């Protein structure tokens, strides 16, 4: 696909890049406006003077009638309030207007006249943080932080109201949910947001309580800079022309009128030599101009003639006899990859790719066992359908590119991989690695969709080059939902058989998935990693269609696989009249999960559950269980550089914090070794030019970074011991938490920093003892472990209105040592919440005939809100993984695998109806209960 380096999965780093493509690609066709000087953009019809008061200061603005308050305020440099959706659904843009929170994306700037505006930056009166800000910091009520300014402003207004009316009474969860109903958090920080607001209101917060994250203060005060906040001098704004057709051949593309518009600077053609549109929303070209309005008008002036071609939008039409291949033979290289791993060579048949049967084993035996078991009634089978889920991180895909000379490039990029995107850019433009700098100080969520070099970067970079000025390009929410990435939809047929004793004797799974124009979806492989002993016939088919391409989404393949598998296990247990935990425990050899069964059995809600379908009234409660398993990946080349300076310690690594908290993890590991507070370690990440750090993907960050941090600490302490011994002629000197211990006492580390010369060490990660399961492929190694999880969820089904409410969830995780319990809990809660969205609400819908997006905003694409989650309890079993340096594996993906399965099993327990399609919408519930 034009402009997109998506061929490789994101299990890669630079080495692979150099080997993979060799020469620099030809750059894309571009054209520059003849008139590079004319300053103003398209003249607005009229300007309006607005006198307002912004954070206590009188301000006058000259605005256009349709300017939003959000844009006008952000242009002053107050970029705390964020553009999330642009249509009033997410609340990221919330400010107070005369002390009342309002969404400013919809508020005309003219409405500010004569009013007082307060932004998140103006919340801390006289420098003292608002109690709500402190509570968000202390309770870790934020992850990526993109939604945080909006939440904080709203919660502060609620707090002030609540305290005035109710004193220190604790507000109920429902009070909090009602107040914050106009805010969405894609990371799923809601559980902690409840805790923060409730605790703040009761006045229980200790003023000095430390923040869980070192960047929490920046996030609650609106100081954290995201790519969309970057403003460079002379910066231009780019907008793209998006195809409204799902399949078309472009006959003529003429941008001359657009380029002639005053204020327009340049155009880049993204169509590629085939001149084909393969999905709606595809970027055809992009235009840079002095402001967004001008760029948009220019896009509207582009003339395009096309032949609209028949679109294959469903698996059925794509596989129908005679359906034209979307990728004809010879055109199957460089396809967009919907999964984390590299694409394996597979067979094609029209629009069908595969089957992939990689992890099948004794498949014939499995099939035979299933047929035999049928006669004794110990088979369970079913067909399960899962929808397309959009990543829709609250910060859209965005890039700001600036060329220094022709030879040096800086790109601010909302990315999960500063290091590898910089290398890909260097390669693409034939630059030296160190001539490209990719910067991502804060990233407003990614979930897998921001792991590779993609069009937003290419557009900004190409246009910056042709225009000779920095260029910013960001997707709007419609395009984020269309192009930003999605989890492919799957249909999975499952059959499981046991022998009379209840041993699993055969597994069969056949999955057909579609990632639109992308390929590579694999789901059934997960059957093998969770129940590895049984004979199995596992097969995955990929079907390409003219729908926007899928991308790896947190635990690719996992949620659909476990929805199908863990429900079938439940059905089998039910058929056998056995406790579903007992059945799983019998089959489960994984030491990471085994201790979780006992924990689960101790949960009263589980113990006291009723029989399936025991409730027959309108509101029916049920409890379900599901297990999950995930790979353990690590990026062995990860490094952390540690410096001691007279002022303290500085750690750096080319990794990035997408809300997972790696900035804090690094600080915490080092602080613990030197007896410091985490705020005393200065951590520099989010720049590609630091030493190689892990990308945020494949749940690898923590397990990759612990080793290098520990190693760097060992090395630096050894050097400091040396310095101190020589300086003070110490005997028996050795490092300790508090400083250099020696025969005569302890010299604090701080005293040694002060006298030592500047020391720099680079920490490496040791190999796992016993080696890896798979050696590093393009940088990432698969460890010899499979992580384990177990979730219990209680739901209530409203049999009259078809609504499913999640009442409470428990998630147990066996991932080894937990470096930062608070952050790990946040990740886990967020995973459960995203899983609730997947189970009950989220679903991308395209027009069935023309393939354009219908669920194009956050009103129609429904992610969970704060009222939808119920309490979530997270349990860590920290045993195991002794052979891994750091004794842990990742959890970022594991935590999102089980919710749909657990919820579906709970619905079965409540109603005796087994949901076979996601999301479990009211119409499906009503229909299911009628059956």
């Amino acid at each position, binding site marked *: 696909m034009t402009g997109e380096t998506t061929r490789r999965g994101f299990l890669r780093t630079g080495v692979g890049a150099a080997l993979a493509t060799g020469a620099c690609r030809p750059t894309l066709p571009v054209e520059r406006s003849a008139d590079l000087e004319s300053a103003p953009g398209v003249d607005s*019809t*009229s300007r*309006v003077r607005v006198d307002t008061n912004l954070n206590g200061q009188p301000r006058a603005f000259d605005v256009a*009638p*349709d300017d*939003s308050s959000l844009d006008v305020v952000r242009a002053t440099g107050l970029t705390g309030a964020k553009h999330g959706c*642009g*249509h*009033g*659904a997410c*609340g990221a843009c*919330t400010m107070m*207007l005369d002390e009342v*929170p*309002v*969404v400013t994306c*919809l*508020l*005309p700037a*003219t*409405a500010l*006249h004569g009013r007082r505006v307060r932004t998140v930056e103006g919340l801390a009166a006289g420098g003292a943080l608002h109690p709500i800000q402190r509570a968000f910091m202390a309770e870790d009520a934020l992850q990526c932080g993109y939604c945080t300014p909006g939440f904080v402003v*709203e919660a502060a207004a609620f707090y002030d109201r609540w305290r005035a009316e109710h004193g220190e009474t604790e507000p109920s969860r429902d009070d909090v*949910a*009602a*107040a914050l*109903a*106009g805010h969405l958090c894609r990371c799923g920080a809601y559980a902690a947001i409840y805790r923060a607001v409730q605790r703040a209101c009761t006045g229980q917060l200790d003023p000095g309580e430390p923040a869980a994250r070192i960047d929490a203060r920046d996030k609650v005060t609106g100081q954290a800079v995201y790519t969309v906040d970057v403003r460079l001098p002379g910066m231009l704004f780019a907008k793209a022309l998006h195809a*409204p057709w799902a399949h078309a051949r472009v006959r003529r593309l003429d941008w001359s009128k657009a380029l002639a518009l005053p204020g327009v600077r340049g155009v880049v053609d993204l169509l590629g030599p085939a001149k084909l549109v393969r999905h*709606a929303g595809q970027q055809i070209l992009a235009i840079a101009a002095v402001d967004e309005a001008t760029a948009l008008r220019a896009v509207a002036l582009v003339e395009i003639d096309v032949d609209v071609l028949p679109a294959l939008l469903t698996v059925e039409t794509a596989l129908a006899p005679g359906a034209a291949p979307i990728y004809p033979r010879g055109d199957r290289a460089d396809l967009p990859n919907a999964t984390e791993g590299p694409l394996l060579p597979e067979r094609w048949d029209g629009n069908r790719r595969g089957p992939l049967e990689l992890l099948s084993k004794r498949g014939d035996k499995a099939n035979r066992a299933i047929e035999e078991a049928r006669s004794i009634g110990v088979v369970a089978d079913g067909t399960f359908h899962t929808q397309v889920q959009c990543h829709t991180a609250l910060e859209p895909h965005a890039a700001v590119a600036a060329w220094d000379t022709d030879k040096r490039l800086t790109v601010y990029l909302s990315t999960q991989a500063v290091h590898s995107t910089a290398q890909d850019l260097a390669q693409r433009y034939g630059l030296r690695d160190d001539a490209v700098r990719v910067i991502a100080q804060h990233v407003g969520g990614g979930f897998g969709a921001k792991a590779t070099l993609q069009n937003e970067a290419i557009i900004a970079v190409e246009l910056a080059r042709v225009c000779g000025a920095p260029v910013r390009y960001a997707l709007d929410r*419609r395009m984020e939902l269309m192009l930003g990435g999605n989890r492919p939809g799957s249909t999975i047929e499952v059959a499981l058989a046991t022998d009379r004793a209840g041993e699993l004797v055969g597994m069969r799974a056949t999955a057909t998935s579609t990632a639109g124009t992308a390929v590579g979806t694999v789901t059934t492989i997960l059957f093998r990693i969770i129940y590895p002993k049984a004979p199995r016939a596992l097969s995955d088919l990929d079907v390409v269609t003219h729908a926007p391409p899928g991308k790896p989404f947190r635990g690719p393949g996992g949620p659909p696989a476990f929805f199908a598998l863990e429900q079938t296990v439940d059905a089998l247990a039910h058929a056998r009249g056995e406790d579903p935990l007992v059945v799983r425990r019998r089959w489960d050899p994984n030491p990471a999960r085994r201790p979780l069964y006992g924990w689960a059995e101790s949960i009263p809600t589980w113990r006291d559950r009723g029989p399936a379908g025991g409730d027959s009234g309108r509101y029916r409660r049920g409890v379900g269980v599901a297990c999950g398993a995930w790979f353990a990946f690590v990026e062995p080349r990860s490094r952390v550089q540690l410096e001691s300076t007279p002022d303290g310690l500085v750690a750096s690594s080319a990794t990035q914090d997408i809300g997972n908290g790696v900035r804090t993890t690094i600080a915490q590991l080092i602080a613990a070794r030197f007896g410091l507070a985490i705020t005393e370690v200065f951590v520099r990440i989010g720049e590609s030019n630091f030493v190689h750090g892990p990308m945020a993907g494949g749940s690898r960050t923590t397990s990759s970074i612990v080793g290098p941090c520990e190693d760097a600490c060992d090395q630096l302490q050894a050097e400091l011991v040396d310095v101190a011994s020589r300086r003070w002629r110490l005997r028996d000197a050795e490092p300790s938490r508090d400083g250099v211990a020696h025969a005569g006492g302890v010299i604090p580390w701080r005293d040694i920093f002060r006298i030592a010369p500047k020391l720099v060490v680079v920490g490496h990660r040791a190999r796992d003892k016993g080696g890896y399961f798979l050696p590093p492929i393009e940088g990432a190694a698969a460890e010899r472990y499979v992580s384990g999880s177990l979730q219990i969820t209680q739901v209530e089904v409203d049999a*009259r*209105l*078809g*609504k499913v409410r999640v009442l409470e969830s428990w998630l147990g995780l066996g991932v080894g040592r937990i470096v930062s319990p608070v952050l790990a809990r946040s990740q886990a809660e967020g995973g459960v919440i995203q899983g609730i969205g997947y189970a*009950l*609400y989220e679903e991308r*819908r*395209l*027009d*069935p*005939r*023309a393939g*354009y*997006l*219908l669920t*194009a*905003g956050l*009103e*129609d694409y*429904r992610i969970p*809100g*704060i*009222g*939808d989650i119920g309490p979530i309890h997270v349990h860590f079993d920290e045993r195991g993984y002794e052979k891994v340096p750091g004794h842990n594996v990742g959890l970022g993906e594991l935590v999102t695998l089980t919710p749909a399965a657990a919820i579906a099993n709970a619905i079965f327990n409540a109603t005796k109806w087994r949901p076979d399609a996601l*999301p479990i*919408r*009211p*119409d499906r519930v*009503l229909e299911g209960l009628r059956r």
Partner: protein
Amino acid sequence: MIRFPTDLAQAAGSDGEIRAGATDLAERRRTMAGEGPLVDLRDVAEARNIEVAADGRTRIGALVTIAALAHDEHVSGGYPGLAQAAGGLATPQIRAVGTVGGNLLQHTRCWYYRAPEAECFKKGGAMCSARKGDHLWHACVELGPCASVHASTLGMALLAYDARIDIVGATMRTVADLYGDGSDPTAHNALPPGAVLRGIEIDPPRRGERSVYLRATSRARAEWPLVEVLVRIGVEAGVIAWAKVAVGAVAGVPLRLPQVEAALVGAPAQAEALVAIAALAREGTAPLPMTAYTVDLLEGVVADALERALVADPVGGS
């Protein structure tokens, strides 16, 4: 071009789109309607209050915010269903700036209307894309060629109150007139071009009235209704003496359910009896292939609202 008239008479009759809270208009102008002239009501001083006449009739100015309507003591005391409807729609931030007039006159949220790629009667097209396309959240009552449902919660609620309307630049009497019969697929309402809504008037509160607003959704909060309902009943001597039932999100305009109202009158004020009557809500529905479930929801929310109304606090104490 933008004008800031200081009263509604000045606002009426001009070409240009009326802008009140802009919570609907701002996004439409950005994504579809373009940058034509605007008439912004920011500086208009009138129509911003809720007034109670000596005889108890209540006038709600078109520029009253939805939040103010929800929190007004007179409204929540005398018209609890209306207050619940106002407090239950959209989000706190939208309610803080969205106005009663804007809510009544907002355009449909149909995803085809809002999709730039789609053809649609309401955008000058010659067909309804939803009908042959994806109409999961569309009408189950056929009034005309457009399959979308009307978005206004307050329009539905005020229909149950037989509210009268006050228009500058046109003569129209009731909220029902404001919407017409839904047969014109190109219209969002029947307000003539250039007319401006000044306010709403409702009869005095009825002592003993019990009312309930409810919506069916999949998420807990801040979600557009799959179906919504407002029920008002009067109970005398254990029998339903009068009933008004309005429903929304089922048709191109908000609807009353006269068959349900008629059956309720004289029925015993008991849950089972009312739930049985709710089944009459299905009469006259004609679902599209994907909207049959909304008929079930319609019956469900009507039943639910009637059950709740039985135990709701009566207006003015019992």
